[in-house]
């Protein structure tokens, strides 16, 4: 009996779907577009987060030691600084390497190069470049570097200015994230409303039939379930179309991302493939949920008791 009922529900849904194919095409197209907007927003959030992450990675704190401080002392500092929580890496640059970098940087400036030639010794000291795990971790690093005990060793402190920059970047990141989240929620709601109304309009075309079915003796469940299943069909097709569309669009956008962030930094298709089940699963849940809910609300309205 249950199998017969299940068979009937599926059959009615499939026959309804096929006999109203243009309505089905329109409904699934609108649902696909709504899902697509949501996917694009997620993609945009991904790009924004990557942009912020890249920006964070540009930030570092450089400590220039006095030329008379030996490499062993500097390397001891390097070891200590690496122990600070939140420090990702501390890079040691010797005075000789620092001089070579300086000459490369000012290769076009003959005055500076000639001045360097005049000096008997290398005027530069060893350098430590400190990179934190996140923007917030520099607070602790700066606290340590501001310790008066280090003052005799340090030639120049450029990390004072970074404090302002780091704080600013943190604020901007936070604001961008909040705006991104707000926009995502807004467009998600719009997509939900559009889908909801589309399904309701589709069922509106059946309103007189729903009343007739009740008069002939059909129970509410007998009438409702084929519409729920039909809604699931719409959702499955919309998810399939949206998922397929991600690949050519991702491929088209990838060269621009590679140019902006550098190759292999953010690969959209790789991200999609590695999170495929999650992405498709969430889409399915959302699309099926909204379809069935919309169908239920609309059918309930038109079934006359």
């Amino acid at each position, binding site marked *: *009996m249950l199998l017969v009922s299940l068979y*009937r529900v599926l059959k009615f849904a499939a026959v309804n779907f096929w*006999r109203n194919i243009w309505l089905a095409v329109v409904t699934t197209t609108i649902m696909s577009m709504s899902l697509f907007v949501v996917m694009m927003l997620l993609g945009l959030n991904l790009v924004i987060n990557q942009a912020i992450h890249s920006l964070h990675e540009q930030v570092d704190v450089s400590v220039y030691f006095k030329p008379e401080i030996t490499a062993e002392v500097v390397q001891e500092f390097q070891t200590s600084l690496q122990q600070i929580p939140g420090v990702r890496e501390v890079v040691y640059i010797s005075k000789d390497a620092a001089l070579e970098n300086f000459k490369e940087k000012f290769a076009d400036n003959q005055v500076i190069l000639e001045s360097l030639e005049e000096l008997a010794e290398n005027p530069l000291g060893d350098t430590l470049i400190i990179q934190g795990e996140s923007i917030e971790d520099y607070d602790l690093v700066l606290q340590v570097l501001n310790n008066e005990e280090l003052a005799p060793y340090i030639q120049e402190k450029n990390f004072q200015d970074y404090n302002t920059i780091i704080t600013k970047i943190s604020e901007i990141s936070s604001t961008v994230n909040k705006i991104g989240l707000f926009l995502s929620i807004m467009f998600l709601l719009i997509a939900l409303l559009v889908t909801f109304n589309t399904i309701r309009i589709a069922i509106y075309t059946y309103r007189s039939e729903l009343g*007739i079915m*009740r*008069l*002939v*003796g*059909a129970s509410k469940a*007998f009438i409702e379930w084929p519409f729920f299943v039909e809604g699931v069909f719409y959702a499955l097709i919309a998810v399939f179309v949206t998922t397929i569309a991600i690949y050519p669009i991702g491929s088209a956008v990838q060269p621009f991302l590679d140019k902006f962030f550098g190759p292999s930094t953010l690969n959209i298709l790789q991200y999609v493939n590695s999170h495929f089940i999650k992405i498709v699963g969430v889409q399915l849940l959302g699309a099926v949920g909204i379809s069935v809910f919309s169908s239920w609300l609309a059918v309930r309205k038109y079934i006359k008791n």
Partner: protein
Amino acid sequence: MIEFKNISMQYPPDVFAVKDVSFKIQPKEFVSIVGQSGTGKTTLVKMIIAEERPTRGKILIGDWDITNIKHYELPVLRRQIGVVWQDFKLLPKKTVFENVAFALEVCGETPEKINRVVPQVLKIVGLGDKQERFPYQLSGGEQQRVVIARALVHRPKILIADEPTGNLDAINTQGIMEILKKINELGTTIILVTHDREIVNSLKKRVITLDGGQVVSDQFEGKYML
């Protein structure tokens, strides 16, 4: 048996669609309920299938008091009654076969039984060769035959025909009435609601006459009196 006991349907403040109507219909009877437009005939029909509820009185079908029937009991009631509507009320997106089969599907019949019974019933009403047509592909008379087939395919004890020939020409009208007479001969109680004088007079069956929402006449082998 169908029994109406002091049935009234009042719309505030003091408009009565039907007022203090009482009658009994025995099993296998053929009863015509007649009256001019607006006298409450269709209201009585709607009360039998609980599409409308009376404001006073009781309606019994057998021993079942359906006056205040619960929503979840409505499908059970309606599966035991066949209704032929003036405006057909066919499902436009289903074929003739599917429209008739629907009445069996809601009763939970198996596909095998449906595939056996539906073609037989369609043959009886003369539509055996039009099973795959859609309602819009049929004439008015043919559509009404589909409605009759749907109304009796699940062998209801009661068949209600509400102005079944209202939209039909004379030839189709005669055809429909012949089918209804045949169904009644096979043991189904028929309640015919009509304002067609000629049909009623030719039937020579019981006639309940309504006027102003009240029963003014109830005659066995009656005639259209108004």
